[in-house]
């Protein structure tokens, strides 16, 4: 279940990345968007819950609860769970989960806002994305490392050291 919750939060992160636009003149706007995004995360969470039920009964077919009219379809052993379309300030958002053996194996965004001029604005920072979910733990995919007060003596062992060496 923890993994599922993790995935739900990943979905939230993805959506925040995509839609958490920030205007420096109005922090209220960012707050409203975040609220909307979090409700999308609920859709993803209920979808994955349905996935667990699916693997238990051996049949496919599920629908998101909490008022979302999710649809599903089976492809091989994985079940696709599609969340309902959520309207955000910037347009419709819809996500799809692949569920296999009671675990979410992928999250994709089917619909995202397009064409709104404000869509070009990008958030200043997002939620961290956990490494065991979508991020490889390889240093090649990061620019800098944040760690607990490393000293010069500890530096040689750190990942930051490898990054610095590679760049010099």
């Amino acid at each position, binding site marked *: 279940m*923890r993994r599922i919750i993790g995935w739900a*939060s990943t979905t939230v*992160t993805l959506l*925040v*990345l995509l839609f*958490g636009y*920030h205007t420096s003149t109005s*922090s209220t706007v*960012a*707050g409203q968007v*975040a609220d909307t995004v979090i409700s999308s995360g609920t859709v993803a969470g209920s979808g994955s819950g349905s996935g667990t039920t699916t693997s238990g009964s051996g049949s496919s077919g599920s629908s998101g609860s909490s008022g979302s009219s999710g649809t599903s379809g089976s492809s091989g052993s994985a079940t696709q769970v599609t969340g309902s379309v959520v309207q955000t300030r910037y347009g419709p958002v819809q996500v799809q989960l692949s569920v296999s053996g009671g675990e979410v194996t992928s999250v994709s965004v089917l619909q995202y806002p397009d064409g709104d001029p404000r869509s*070009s*604005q*990008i*958030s*200043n*920072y*997002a*939620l*961290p*994305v*956990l*490494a065991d979910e979508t*991020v490889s*733990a390889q*240093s090649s*995919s*990061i*620019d*800098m*490392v*944040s*760690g*607990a*007060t*490393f*000293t*010069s003596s*500890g*530096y040689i*062992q*750190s*990942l*930051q*050291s490898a*990054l*610095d060496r590679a*760049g*010099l």
Partner: protein
Amino acid sequence: MTATLGTTRQVVHVMGMPVSLALRGRHAATAAGERAWLEAVATLRDVDRVFSTYRADSHVSRLDRGEIGLSECPPDVAEVLAIGELARVQSGGAFDVRRPDASGRLVLDPSGVVKGWAVERAARSLVRLEDTDVCLSAGGDMVCHVADPARDPWLVGIEDPHDPSRVVARVPVRQGAVATSGAAHRGAHIVDARTGVAATGVAQVTVVGPDLTWADVDATAAYALGAGALAWLSTRPGRTGLVVWDDGRCETFGRAG
């Protein structure tokens, strides 16, 4: 993605910790970029001369011994102590620039404020570089700046407190700061100022926010709060971040800013 623009890097050791710079864009490899870097390093050295608790002749050491008063220190000292006092109040006393030493005497140690505050200040010369992206890190706490919204954010890896060769998470930052507190490299060096006891339950706290001064203060305060870290962090507006518990569990918090 980021590699296409070309990142230049610099490292120097100041205040007993590695200071790493990554630059992308117009001044990544120009004389102006080099001058801004040297200015940033000079700023950190100046701050160290005033604030170091390891230097007997620093203003803070002399202030602690009662040899000089606050009015005889540079105004920066009052500013840092004011931030520390605000943090003490806001953290319910878990964060404090005064801590008991081994003999029980209260010593002045504003290091928990100074580091983030100093890097924020040092980054100014670099952030002024036109059309240039900056990521300036001192001992794992950093200021990030991306000059052109069309370019990729800086991708900051969050170190695994149980294995420094790995990261547990990654966070994209365009404008803002990332600070991490924990015991990974120095042993249990952060104590709850209320009890003088090292924090338990939480292995590491990372805070992402608009400025490094407060990201660093918040990470330190939350770490000192131990088991209460996440609950306290969720009361702090405009931050995101990650708490790694002693058992390795990771929990993110906050909203994108």
